[in-house]
């Protein structure tokens, strides 16, 4: 749902917002989790902000990703100041993905590898792979040119593959 449900000049109806939330909540939470430790709060507040808008944004998906990104970065900065003494607890990383036997890659391995990526590459990968954003939308979200977003996506994938340990044409370890 990259476009507004009916007409972006209309106000946001609850029946229009519900499928939008259900479609994007999980990916947005994963997107926010790459920055901060309270992604659910960030996503919840971002959806609330969307609900309070007088009408649908021109591109709701890019809009909500941009809001989530800004909020998550603010949360992370505040948390860095507030929770430096909880570094030990920070080691216990919650699962970013659901454990699924059918998945081609182990969820914990992917979480650890993804967490090791630089933030600028990670946000492009998460936004494109699980958020379904185009590179033009990612450029809108991150403020980068679309070509730069694509380059970061490619280099991030390469780095991620090396960290997970998958060689070309080789199955998961």
């Amino acid at each position, binding site marked *: 749902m990259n476009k507004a449900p009916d007409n972006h000049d209309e*106000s*946001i*109806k*609850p029946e229009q*917002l*519900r499928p939008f*939330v259900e479609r994007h*909540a*999980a*990916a947005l*939470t*994963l997107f926010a989790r790459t920055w901060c430790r309270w*992604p*659910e709060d960030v*996503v*919840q507040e971002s*959806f*609330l902000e969307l*609900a*309070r*808008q*007088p009408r649908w944004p021109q591109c709701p998906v890019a809009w909500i990703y941009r809001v989530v990104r800004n909020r998550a970065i603010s949360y992370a900065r505040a948390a860095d100041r507030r929770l430096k003494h909880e570094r030990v607890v920070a080691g216990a990383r*919650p*699962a*970013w*993905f*659901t454990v*699924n036997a*059918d*998945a*081609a*890659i182990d*969820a914990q391995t*992917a979480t650890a590898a993804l967490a090791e990526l630089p933030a600028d590459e990670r946000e492009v*990968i998460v936004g494109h*792979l*699980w958020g379904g954003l*185009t*590179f*033009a939308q990612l450029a809108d979200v991150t403020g980068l040119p*679309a*070509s730069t977003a*694509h380059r970061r996506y*490619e280099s991030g*994938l*390469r780095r*991620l*593959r090396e960290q997970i340990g*998958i060689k*070309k*044409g080789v199955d*998961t370890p």
Partner: protein
Amino acid sequence: MNDSPLPNGLDEFAARLRTLAPAAVEMDQDQIMFAAGRASVRVRPPKIAAFAWAWALSTAALLLISLVLVWQWRAAAAQPARVVYVEVPIAATLTTSAEPQAPTNIEPQAFARQLSSAALDASNYLSLRRRVLADGLESLTGSDPPGADTPVIYSAGQYRELLNAQEGG
């Protein structure tokens, strides 16, 4: 750019990654729907929006006036009080006091009033008595300061008569 293939089997790796499902989230969707419901029925009359600046402007003007008045009041309160002495012209005082007093028969009440303003200030009863006996009641209504111990002045004829009376007596 979306469909451009990635080199070195990265497309296949991306497809594998996509099989991972983001962890389920716990969110209060009811709160979001409630906010959306409230926002959808919010009424914004265009007239009110058009005149919204007038309220802000009038409030700002009133605030500015209030601040100026308070500033003026505080500046005035900070200055010390000035005492101005005004001198009464002596000529005017003399004119009023030099007016001739009409010798009239003085009523007791009027006499008492005059006496209260002039004679009662004098603490010396004896000098007052002497003055009344010598010059009469009219002397109290004059401008002479009461209580002055004025000597009795006799004329030459009166003085001679007094001497003759003493010698004869």
